C-alpha cells in the first residue's frame, strides 16, 4: 500500500529542487511562452510582406493565337498581366496552329474520363496525347525557363466565334509548382470569367434572350507540371524542414552524451592524460556523433519514402523516385556535418547531461526556427539564400524534389555549407582546448574568442587559414552580388584590393605573421624566374586546353565571362587591361592564397598545403565551371611558390597567364593567323606542346630550391 504522505513529501522536495533550477524553469516555461508568439510573428510578417510583393508584381503571359485588341487591353488593365503575343512559339508551329493543323489539346475532363474508365490503354493514350502535344511541349519549355508565367492558347476560330455568337475556346497553360505561374493562372481565369460574363450579357441583350442562355467562352485550364513535380512540391514544402529537424535531434543527444555525459561520468580525464591532442579527441567524437546523425537521417528518409510511397500509391499519383531521396540524403550531408559540429562545441560547455539539454535546446530552436520560412510557397533558392546556413540546404532539397535545382546554386549552397561546417568544427576544436571548459568551468568564454594567445607565432594555424578564407569568401560573395550593377573595373578593384589584399594586410599586421615565412616574400632564384615565365606563357594550354575538355563550360557561361572580361564594351587600353586583370589578381590573390592560406596549411605537409590552398583558390572563383581549370592552375602555382620559396614566382605565372588570356580576347586580330576564333577546343597537339613547355618551366623552378624547403629550413636552423 502506498503511503501517500511520504510520497507527497518526496514530491514536495523534488518540485522545490527542480523549480530552484532556474535553467529548467526557463526551458519549461519561459521558452514556450516566448517562442510561439515569436515564430507566429516572424512567419506572419514574412508571409504578409511576400504576399504584398506578389500581389504587386506584374505577371508575364504568352498569348498564342489571335487575341482581339479590346480583350487584350481588358486583360492587361485590370489584372496586372503583361501579354506577349507569340512569345516562345516557333513560327512554323504558330502557322500550323493558326491553320488548325494541330490536334486539339485534350481537356482535363477527357483525361479524367479516361482515368475513370479503368482502362490502362485509354488513360495512357490521353496522357501521351497531352504530354506529346507540340503546344504543351513548347509551353513547358517556356514556363520552365521562366520566360513566361503562363500561356494563353486561343482556338484558331476564337475571333470568329466571339463575333459570330459561338462558343470561343481558350486554354490556360500553367505550372502549379511555380507560385508565380499558379498566380498567373488564377488572375487569367478571373479575368476570362469576367470577360465571359460580359460577353454573355451582351449576346443575351442583342438577341433578346433570357439571362444565362448562352455560354460564350470555354476556359480550359491545363497544369503543365507532371505528377512527379506536383508530388515533389508537396514533399518539398514539408520534408526539408522535417528532415533537418529530425536529423538534428539525433545529434542532440549523441553530442551531449559524448561530452557532458563523459564529464558527468568522470571518464574524460583518462582521455585528457592520454597522448592525444585536443583535435584528435574532438575529431574522434565528432565523427562518432556524425555517424549517429547520419543513421538518424537515413532512418527518417527511408521511413518517409516508404510511407509516402504507400500513401501516394493508393491514390495512383506517387512519382518521387528513390534517386530523389538519395540526392536529398547527399544534400543533407553538409547540413548534418555543420549541425553536429555546432552541437558538439556547445555541449562541451555543459557540466552534466541536464546542463547539456539546457544549453542545446535553445541552440536547436535558434538553428531550426528559420527553416520554417522555407515551407512558405514562394521562398526559393537563389544567390542570396544559397549562403544562409541550413535554410540553403532546405531550399536546395525543395528544388531537388521539384527537379528544379540549378547547378550554380547547388554549387554555392554546398560550398557555403561546407565552409560553415568547417568553421563550426574549428570552433569545436578550439573549445576542446579550453581546459576549464573541459573540467566543468565556465570562465573561459573570453578565451574562446581571443585569437592572440594561441596564435603567438609567425604563421597562421590551419584553423586560422580556414576561418580567414571563410570570412573573405562570404564578403566577396555578397559584395559581388551588390556590385552586379557596377562596371567590371569597380568590381575588380573592390574585390581584389578591398577583400583580398586589405584584410590580408590587416591580419598580417594584427597577428604579426612573418613576411618571409608566411608570405614567402623572398627574391626568387634566376632559374625560378625563367621557369615562371615559361609556365606563365604555357599553363593555359593545360588549364584551358586540356582540362576544359574534361568539363566543358556551357556556351552561355563562356559568353558571360567574355562579356565581363571585355569590360562590357568599355574602351580600356591594353596596358590597363593587363594591370587590372593580370597584375592586380597576381598580387592580391597570390598574397592571400599562396601566402596566408598556404602558409596556414603548411604545417600539415606540402601535399595538404598545395591541395587545400588550390581548392580554396578554385572555390573563390565562384563557378562550378571554373573549378577544375582554376584548381589545376592553383596546384601549378602552389608547387612553384613552395619549391622556389618565393611568392614572386607565383605572381609572375599568375600575371602572365591572365594577361595572355585577356589579350587574346581584347586583341583577337593579333592571333588571327593561329585561328583562335574558329577553335572550339585547343587542339591536342597544341595542348601537349604547351604542357611540355610548362613541364620544362616546372623543372627550372624545381631546380631553384630543395624538395622540401620547410624541412631544409629546420635542418639549417638546428
Amino acid at each position, binding site marked *: 500500500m502506498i503511503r501517500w504522505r511520504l510520497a507527497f513529501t518526496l514530491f514536495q522536495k523534488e518540485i522545490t529542487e527542480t523549480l530552484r533550477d532556474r535553467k529548467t524553469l526557463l526551458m519549461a516555461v519561459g521558452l514556450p511562452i516566448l517562442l510561439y508568439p515569436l515564430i507566429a510573428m516572424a512567419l506572419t510578417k514574412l508571409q504578409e510582406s511576400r504576399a504584398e510583393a506578389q500581389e504587386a508584381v506584374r505577371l508575364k503571359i504568352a498569348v498564342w493565337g489571335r487575341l482581339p485588341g479590346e480583350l487584350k487591353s481588358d486583360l492587361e488593365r485590370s489584372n496586372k498581366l503583361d501579354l506577349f503575343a507569340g512569345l516562345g512559339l516557333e513560327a512554323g508551329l504558330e502557322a500550323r496552329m493558326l491553320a488548325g493543323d494541330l490536334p486539339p489539346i485534350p481537356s482535363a475532363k477527357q483525361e479524367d474520363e479516361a482515368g475513370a474508365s479503368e482502362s490502362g490503354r485509354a488513360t495512357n493514350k490521353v496522357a501521351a496525347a497531352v504530354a506529346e502535344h507540340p503546344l504543351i511541349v513548347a509551353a513547358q519549355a517556356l514556363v520552365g525557363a521562366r520566360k513566361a508565367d503562363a500561356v494563353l492558347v486561343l482556338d484558331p476560330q476564337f475571333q470568329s466565334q466571339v463575333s459570330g455568337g459561338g462558343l470561343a475556346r481558350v486554354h490556360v497553360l500553367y505550372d502549379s509548382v511555380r507560385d508565380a505561374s499558379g498566380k498567373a493562372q488564377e488572375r487569367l481565369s478571373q479575368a476570362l470569367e469576367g470577360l465571359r460574363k460580359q460577353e454573355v450579357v451582351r449576346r443575351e441583350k442583342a438577341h433578346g434572350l433570357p439571362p444565362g442562355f448562352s455560354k460564350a467562352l470555354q476556359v480550359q485550364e491545363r497544369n503543365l507540371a507532371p505528377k512527379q513535380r506536383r508530388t515533389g512540391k508537396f514533399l518539398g514544402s514539408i520534408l526539408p524542414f522535417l528532415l533537418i529537424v529530425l536529423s538534428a535531434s539525433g545529434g542532440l543527444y549523441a553530442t551531449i552524451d559524448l561530452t557532458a555525459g563523459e564529464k558527468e561520468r568522470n571518464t574524460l580525464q583518462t582521455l*585528457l592524460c592520454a*597522448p592525444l591532442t585536443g583535435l584528435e579527441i574532438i575529431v574522434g567524437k565528432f565523427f562518432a556523433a556524425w555517424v549517429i546523425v547520419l543513421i538518424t537521417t537515413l532512418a527518417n528518409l527511408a521511413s518517409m519514402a516508404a510511407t509516402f510511397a504507400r500513401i501516394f500509391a493508393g491514390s495512383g499519383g506517387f512519382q518521387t523516385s528513390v534517386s530523389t531521396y538519395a540526392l536529398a540524403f547527399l544534400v543533407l550531408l553538409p547540413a548534418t556535418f555543420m549541425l553536429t559540429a555546432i552541437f558538439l562545441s556547445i555541449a562541451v560547455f555543459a557540466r552534466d547531461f541536464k546542463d547539456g539539454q539546457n544549453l542545446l535546446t535553445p541552440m536547436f530552436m535558434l538553428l531550426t526556427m528559420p527553416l520554417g520560412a522555407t515551407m512558405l510557397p514562394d521562398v526559393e533558392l537563389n544567390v542570396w539564400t544559397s549562403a544562409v546556413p541550413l535554410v540553403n540546404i532546405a531550399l536546395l532539397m525543395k528544388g531537388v524534389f521539384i527537379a528544379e535545382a540549378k547547378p550554380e546554386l547547388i554549387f554555392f549552397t554546398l560550398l557555403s555549407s561546407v565552409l560553415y561546417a568547417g568553421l563550426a568544427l574549428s570552433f569545436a576544436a578550439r573549445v576542446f582546448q579550453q581546459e576549464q571548459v573541459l573540467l566543468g568551468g565556465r570562465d573561459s568564454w573570453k578565451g574562446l574568442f581571443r585569437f592572440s594567445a594561441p596564435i603567438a607565432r609567425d604563421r597562421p594555424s590551419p584553423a586560422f587559414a580556414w576561418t580567414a578564407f571563410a570570412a573573405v569568401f562570404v564578403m566577396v560573395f555578397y559584395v559581388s552580388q551588390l556590385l552586379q550593377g557596377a562596371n567590371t573595373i569597380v568590381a575588380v578593384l573592390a574585390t581584389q584590393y578591398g577583400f583580398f589584399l586589405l584584410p590580408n594586410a590587416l591580419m598580417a599586421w594584427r597577428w604579426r605573421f612573418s613576411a618571409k615565412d608566411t608570405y614567402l616574400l623572398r627574391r626568387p632564384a634566376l632559374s625560378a624566374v625563367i621557369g615562371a615565365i615559361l609556365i606563365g606563357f604555357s599553363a593555359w594550354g593545360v588549364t584551358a586546353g586540356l582540362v576544359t575538355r574534361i568539363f566543358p563550360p556551357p556556351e552561355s557561361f563562356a559568353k558571360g565571362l567574355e562579356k565581363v572580361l571585355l569590360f562590357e564594351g568599355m574602351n580600356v587600353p591594353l596596358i590597363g587591361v593587363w594591370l587590372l586583370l593580370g597584375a592586380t589578381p597576381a598580387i592580391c590573390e597570390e598574397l592571400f592564397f599562396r601566402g596566408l592560406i598556404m602558409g596556414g596549411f603548411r604545417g600539415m605537409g606540402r601535399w595538404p598545403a598545395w591541395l587545400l590552398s588550390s581548392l580554396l583558390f578554385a572555390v573563390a572563383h565562384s563557378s562550378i565551371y571554373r573549378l577544375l581549370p582554376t584548381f589545376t592552375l592553383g596546384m601549378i602555382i602552389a608547387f612553384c611558390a613552395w619549391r622556389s620559396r618565393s611568392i614572386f614566382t607565383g605572381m609572375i605565372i599568375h600575371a602572365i597567364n591572365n594577361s595572355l588570356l585577356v589579350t587574346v580576347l581584347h586583341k583577337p586580330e593579333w592571333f588571327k593567323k593561329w585561328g583562335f576564333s574558329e577553335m572550339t577546343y585547343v587542339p591536342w597537339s597544341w595542348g601537349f606542346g604547351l604542357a611540355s613547355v610548362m613541364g620544362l618551366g616546372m623543372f627550372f623552378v624545381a631546380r631553384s630550391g630543395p624538395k622540401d624547403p620547410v624541412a631544409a629550413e629546420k635542418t639549417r636552423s638546428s
Partner: protein
Amino acid sequence: MEGMLIAEGLVKRFGDFTAVDQVSLSVSAGEVVGILGPNGAGKTTTLRMLAGILTPTEGSVRIDGIDLREAPLKAKARMGFLSGDTQLYRRLTPRELLRFFGKLYEVPEPLLSRRVDRLIEELDMASFADRPCGALSSGQKQRANIARAFLHEPRALILDEPTATLDVWSGQFIVEAIRRERAAGRAILFSTHIMSEVEYLCDRIYLVHGGRLVEQGRLAEILERSGCANLTDAFLNRARESEAHQSAVVHTGGPR
C-alpha cells in the same frame, strides 16, 4: 633536481585565485613519494598539472627528461595517471577498455594482447574481465582502472587517492600492486588521506597546505622535526602552523 618525474616552480591560478603556488618536487625511478594535505590544499591541481590535464600558469614538468609543455604527447606516453574518482566507460568490458587504451598509447598488437592477458591475471580480473564496467563493484572497477594506468608500462605513475573509495581488502590489493610497480623501477607519486598507507608505502613525503609545500623529507625526518610520535600528529601540527602563519600574514599585511 634529478628524477624521473620533476616539477619546478609550479603555479596554477584560476582568475584571481592561486590554487598552487611555487610547488617543486621530484620522484626518482623505483621510489614512491607521498603527497599529503587537507582537502583544498592543491594536491589534485598539482597532480593534474603533472599529468598534463591542466596547463601550469608558471613552472615546468619533466617526465623522463621530456618537457611536458614542449613535447606533451611524448611526455604523456611515459606517464600513467589514476585518481580515486576516475570512472570507466560503462558499456565497455575491462578487456575492451584495456585494448582501447592500449591502442591510444600505441602498444603494438601482439604485445598488447599479451599485456592485457597478463594484467587480467595479475590483478585477478578474470572473473569480470568480460562484463560491462557499469556492472562492476567499486573494487573491481578500480582494479580495471589501475590496469589501464599500468598497461603501457609508464616510467612514472601519478596516483591521486587511488584507494579513497575502496574497502580495506580492495585498498590493500591496490597498495600491493603499487609496491610491485615500485619494484619494477617506476617513479610513483601518490596522494592519500590514509596515513597507514603513507607509512607503509612512501619513501619520501611532501606536505602541501594552502597551495604551497610546507614540509618534505623521509618519514623519520619529518617525525623528528615535528617531535611527534606518528605521522597523523605531525601532519596536523604542520597544518595548524601553516594556517596560523597564513592568518598572521592576512592580518598584518605580511612583511614590508
